[in-house]
């Protein structure tokens, strides 16, 4: 298996507070990796370091090495990093005043793509990949992204992230605000998407982690306590702290 993301001795800070204490992990390409752990353990901070979102906070900085496809993301412009690494958040955040079409095309336009045919193709491909094309194809330019249901908005945001052909898609609790049907659609989508790209998903829902991810990492107080195949983590974890957390004995 090929490594998509190589993280070496990654530390993240908020001001003087060290939030991640030297994370080392190799994330397999074209697989889904789940990141679990209690609130405040550093899991969101960790994935925000993978596309340099962490440093958008003026108080925050990161130290260490993160390589995506072999290239050190801290040695390239942040804009290029975010083209390689898309991100989807807990709460769907479509651009409210833009049409569905423009929401998906926004990233490409920012990157300088102006050709109408190229944009049309990318929008359709992305919406199809995000499994929402059939639901919106007739209202692409008539309806705004904000007019869709919560589950549709989240898939629209996934389509927007896919439009620039990322190598890695980061998902920060992408289904936590959705109903079970919309959650199932997102999970089906993850299964389809990971055939072609690498997914790192933060989730509080351990059943979701076990359903969608081949690998799982357990974070606790800024440390990566355990990283292994998902079935190992959820049936027979090596570390007592992992077991205490996933069985609810933690705390």
């Amino acid at each position, binding site marked *: 298996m090929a490594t998509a993301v190589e993280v070496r001795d990654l530390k993240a800070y908020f001001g003087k507070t060290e939030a991640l204490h030297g994370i080392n992990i190799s994330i397999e390409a074209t697989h889904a990796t789940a990141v679990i752990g209690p609130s405040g353990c550093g899991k969101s901070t960790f994935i925000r370091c993978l596309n340099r979102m962490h440093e958008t906070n003026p108080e925050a900085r990161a130290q260490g090495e993160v390589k995506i496809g072999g290239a050190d993301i801290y040695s390239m412009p942040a804009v290029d990093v975010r083209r390689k690494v898309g991100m989807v958040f807990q709460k769907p955040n479509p651009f409210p005043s833009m049409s569905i079409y423009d929401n998906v095309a926004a990233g490409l336009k920012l990157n300088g793509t102006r050709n109408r045919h190229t944009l049309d193709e990318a929008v359709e491909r992305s919406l199809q990949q995000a499994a929402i094309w059939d639901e919106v194809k007739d209202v692409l330019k008539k309806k705004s992204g904000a007019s869709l249901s919560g589950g549709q908005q989240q898939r629209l945001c996934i389509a927007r992230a896919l439009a620039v052909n990322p190598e890695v898609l980061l998902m920060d609790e992408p289904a936590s605000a959705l109903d079970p049907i919309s959650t199932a659609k997102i999970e089906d989508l993850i299964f389809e998407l990971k055939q072609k790209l690498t997914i790192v998903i933060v989730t509080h829902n*351990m*059943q979701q982690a076990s359903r969608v991810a081949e690998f799982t990492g357990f974070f606790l107080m800024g440390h990566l306590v355990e990283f292994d*195949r998902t*079935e*190992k983590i*959820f*049936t*027979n*974890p090596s570390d007592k702290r*992992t*077991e205490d957390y*996933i*069985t*609810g*004995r*933690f*705390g």
Partner: protein
Amino acid sequence: MTRIRFHQELDELKHRILAMAGMAEQAVDLAVQAYSQRDLNLCERVLANESGINRAEREVDEFAIDLLAMQQPMAIDLRFILAVIKINADLERVGDQAVNIAQRVMHMVGMPAFELPVDIPAMASRVRAMVRDALRSFIEGDTELAKHVLEADDEIDRINHEAFAALSACMQAKPDCAVQALDALSIARNLERVADHATNIAEDVIFWVRGADVRHGAGQTIAGT
């Protein structure tokens, strides 16, 4: 500690399977006692108690399945519930073996008593010790004790083979005792099966506590490690 209610329910599940284990153990004790004393009343008690064991098996299964569905257990809790479901089936089969022994005893009591070349009470004593140890290993999560149970099974197999050889020879030498010898052979076989169920229980305890699958001589752990 979180999920307090769930962990109370796991305790309740353990309590229920141990209650059932007590019934299965008692059934074997009564059946062996019935053999030693040629006592039809004890045989009737074993038969009468079987429905209680069957009912307990269903109740434990239902409770365990409810926990799986409602609580989505993980890791050691998941392994515990899976182990209980399997132990439950083994205990029910122990109850069945006791019934088989009682039925053989009922058959033997109707015929003249013969001095047979097999010490069923001694074999039963070893088998009951295995069952007791298997259950104690479950109560205490003691994998060392569980391993001793696995080792003891070889001895029971050896006793069973010796009983087979001795009773076969007896049948050939004294055809008059063939029917009684066949009954004793079946009883020895039933006891050997009880020991197999104790072995299964011990394997389930190791699976629960260590996540290791040691069935059929395998030493590897689950989840590919």
